[in-house]
């Protein structure tokens, strides 16, 4: 019968070798979480925060921030439009040049504000083609009329005259922001005689 004894011994050796290898590599930790995991929640919790809070931008961008904080766009974080700002902040704080170009700015507005079926009716949205018609086909980008940091409805914006030669497109009698009553019947050409001094109203 000794062949069975030898075989049995071989089996015992193999099994014990396995348990030994197992004990070398397994660390029992918190029961609830399971074996080998005591440190893993800590590792996940220790990961670096990448997205920055909009409040951090206040450090430098103060006047801008004040208008934004009172505007309809306050639920939109700075990073929603400007993308990751982490590198920009680090460099700027160190005094280095830190440009943060805004890519695809005109598409950004439409990402939220284009008229897409499914958006709640109460949410401000435009059909881009119709919106252009409304303005006489003139504006080329949203920011020409809408201040992204304080969009307003209707937008309060400073007029840069460049690209806005068609005054009556917006201010005509049946248009979106008509002329005040005492300005009735004035034509395009007379506008600029008064309204031209500097960038302003």
């Amino acid at each position, binding site marked *: 019968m000794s062949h069975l004894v030898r075989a049995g*011994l071989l089996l015992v050796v193999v099994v014990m070798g396995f348990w030994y290898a197992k004990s070398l590599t397994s660390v029992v930790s918190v029961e609830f979480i399971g074996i080998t995991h005591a440190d893993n929640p*800590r590792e996940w919790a220790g990961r670096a925060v990448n997205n920055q809070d909009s409040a951090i931008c206040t450090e430098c961008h103060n006047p801008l921030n004040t208008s934004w904080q009172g505007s309809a766009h306050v639920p939109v974080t700075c*990073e929603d439009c400007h993308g990751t700002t982490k590198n920009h902040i680090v460099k700027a704080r160190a005094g280095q040049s830190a440009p943060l170009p805004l890519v695809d700015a005109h*598409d950004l507005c439409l*990402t939220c504000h284009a008229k*897409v079926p499914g958006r*709640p009716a109460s949410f401000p949205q435009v059909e881009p083609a119709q919106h252009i018609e409304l303005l006489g086909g003139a504006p080329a980008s949203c920011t020409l009329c809408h201040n992204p940091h304080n969009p307003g409805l209707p937008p309060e914006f400073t007029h840069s005259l460049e690209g806005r030669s068609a005054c009556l497109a917006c201010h005509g009698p049946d248009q979106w922001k008509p002329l005040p009553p005492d300005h009735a019947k004035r034509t395009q050409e007379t506008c600029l005689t008064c309204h031209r001094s500097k960038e302003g109203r």
Partner: protein
Amino acid sequence: MDASRRRFIKLGAHAVFGGLFVYTLRGLVPPGSPSTASARGDTAYDQYRPTDHEWAFIVDSTKCIGCGRCARACKQENNVPMEPSCNRTWVERYRITREDVVLVDSPDGGINGFPSDGSSGEGGGSNSSLTRNAPAKPQARKREEEVVKSFFVPKLCNQCERPPCVQVCPVGATYKTLDGVVLVNQKRCIGCRYCIQACPYGARYLVPDAEVTPTGQKHVADKCTWCYHRITRGLLPACVEACPVGARTFGDLRDPDSAVRRILDEHRIDVLKPDLGTRPRVKYIGLDEAVV
């Protein structure tokens, strides 16, 4: 005593004492992998007591505008690969026609928003811009194909109370923390993808060969962590922070003043696939019967 019996007893004694000897050698071996974060002195997590918090996540589908800022912020925050098949969170659009046909789509997970001309927008739905050619007027649709109802549904890992993914992981790499968040130990994950099969919500994916990965590990399972590194520091998850219309809300139910407490007390709540018994902890307002 019989010679063979003597031999047998000797053999047995050798086995027992040999085994004990081998067993004590264990004690000479240092314990497993050292903690890296505690070596760094992560004081924020040291002060965090998981059992003090009962996190809740509420999605208000009636507010969602499908802009995809949440998906984008998540990928930026968590170093998720930009591949369209890697989504920790995504937005779905449901369009229901007059004949009750339900059309669902989620171009690239909604990360670029949804197209404005109402088309299905497969493979990246970039919105038309004012400077580009104005979109053609939508083709006249037959009356019965006309979409009569549509809405957006943001989705993410539901951090189930009874997670099937934790149940099936063969090596225990995915687990539930003491504060109820389901995490993946990516150093242990063997990439068998059983958890991906088991998740009823499609919330998990396998990290591909990409330059940027959440923890530097490839070919392991990954999923939404409710931005565990943010919530343990008192911040909001990236998607909640990024949502411009407040469709996502996150908070601590133990805090009687929290928004989530108020919402759960005042609204009727739904969850996804309640019949499966996973008890999701992401609660929905405004789900439709068409949403699966």
